[in-house]
């Protein structure tokens, strides 16, 4: 993780300058983080305007409240978690229930297996089974998997960004997701895909009589 440590240090320096009032440092942080946060935001919503509004709010607030920000912040943790909070909590749909029901938000993931190197490693049937299994994971599992495997975040960072009480919870989420994918390809004898979700509103009828 040498490259990560280097960029963390670079960020910390820029952050320090920014807190002292440097608009050049502010612009540096914006140029660096706008694209990656936008990319992250596209998983919470397909509405580009909503994402851009959230990012605008985020950076304006950052600038206007810089007097009360702390130096010790890990810049990446801080920007990701603040942005995430805005995307979810500013959404009228989710605002009310998100605190009680932690899975009450949107997070969609799209895969691309077009790349020759990748497609050569994947069996069509297994890919289909994994797609189905993946689609049934909870929102938080999908997000944790994205943060771990695409953003290459450590479990400490995932726990901070997703507001978990304990770091091991992030690891549990990711490991369970991997286990689901593993189960999906383990049984090759045409038996049922494991972890399929059945609609539970189906109530069986017993003694039907016409009325």
């Amino acid at each position: 993780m040498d490259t990560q440590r280097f960029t963390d240090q670079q960020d910390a320096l820029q952050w320090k300058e920014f807190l002292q009032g440097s608009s050049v440092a502010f612009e540096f942080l914006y140029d660096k983080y706008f694209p990656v946060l936008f990319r992250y935001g596209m998983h919470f919503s397909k509405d580009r305007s909503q994402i851009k509004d959230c990012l605008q709010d985020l950076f304006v607030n950052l600038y206007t409240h810089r007097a009360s920000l702390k130096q010790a912040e890990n810049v990446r943790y801080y920007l990701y978690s603040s942005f995430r909070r805005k995307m979810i909590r500013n959404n009228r749909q989710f605002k009310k229930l998100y605190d009680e029901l932690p899975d009450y938000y949107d997070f969609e993931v799209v895969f691309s297996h077009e790349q020759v190197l990748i497609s050569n490693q994947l069996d069509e049937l297994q890919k289909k089974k994994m797609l189905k299994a993946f689609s049934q994971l909870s929102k938080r599992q999908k997000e944790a998997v994205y943060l771990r495997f695409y953003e290459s975040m450590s479990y400490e960072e995932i726990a901070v960004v997703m507001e978990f009480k304990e770091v091991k919870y992030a690891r549990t989420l990711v490991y369970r997701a991997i286990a689901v994918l593993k189960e999906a390809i383990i049984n090759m004898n045409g038996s049922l895909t494991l972890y399929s979700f059945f609609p539970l509103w189906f109530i069986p009828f017993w003694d039907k009589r016409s009325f």
Partner: protein
Amino acid sequence: MDYIHYQVEDFVDDPFFNKWVRQPGQDTDAFWKTWLENHPEKYEKVEEARRIVSFLSFQVTLPSDQEQEEVKKNIKKMIDALQHHNALHPLQDSKWTTINWRRVAAAFALLLVATLLVWHVMDYFQPQKYTTTYAEMQEIILPDSSIVTLNANSVLSYRKNWSENSDREVWLKGEAFFQVLKKPGQANARFIVHTHNLNVEVLGTEFNVNSRHGDTKVVLNSGKVKLNGKDERGQEQELLMEPGDLVLLTKEHELVRRQVNANAYSSWKDNRLFFDDMTIREVLQLLEDNYGYAAQVSDPSLLDMSFTGSCPADSIQILLTALEETFDIKVSVVDNTIMIQKKTQLDK
């Protein structure tokens, strides 16, 4: 790195392994190829892990350069505007000394009276409403002293002022147990429970109404109850219930009637859940309705198995353990989801 003891999940999670699969290069190839030669017994696990890592190739969307510039401009504008505003409108002390306090007090009093008036009028016409959240139960005493025990995730409402001669009416979404007082000497004083597809008319009775997901289920413990509902042709139909009767009217207008142990359907109000030959599917549905748990089952045939038992309503864990022991399955709760799978060798 203790790769020898790694399981499939551990390989998938390992950053160095990920690098080898996604961006093979001399350094990663050199290590892994040699390692695999020395540990051929791990080949299968490594292969599975490779497939999973390959699968986890994300497609992402980046903003355009214009979008990046556009937002940057807007941010600068906002910041300038805010700074400008703060510069132009600092607090001016002189304004505060010329306030006419009498005027302020009068305006305040008027506002207060107006608010109270509006509030009172609105209140008179507003229905009385009780709402429970997941895993919450509430006992309500109605204006005629009848008692309603409202189960979790439910709403009960009624008009506030009940006069002697008019019908006593309540509206229910969810589940509640009713203990209705007979009104002495009042031949016309009906008590009616409205659900979205059924009306329950009562005379001095104890019964349970469960109205969720478009279906309404009524179970009569004692007394007499008359049901009114529309059948699939839109015609009004009536049905008289006897104690021990269960009647279910689905959202597709199908009517089911059978005799049951009525106490099983209202035991929740005594903080006890009682399952009388219920399928796992129904048990999970109940847990979803009252506690908000989603569920995932590894083998759908498990859903049709029958379960008889009971547990305290505030300790689901006891129920889950009972299920584990009865059906030889593994039950766990992750992330507000109940996961059920058949026990494998690894779990023994």
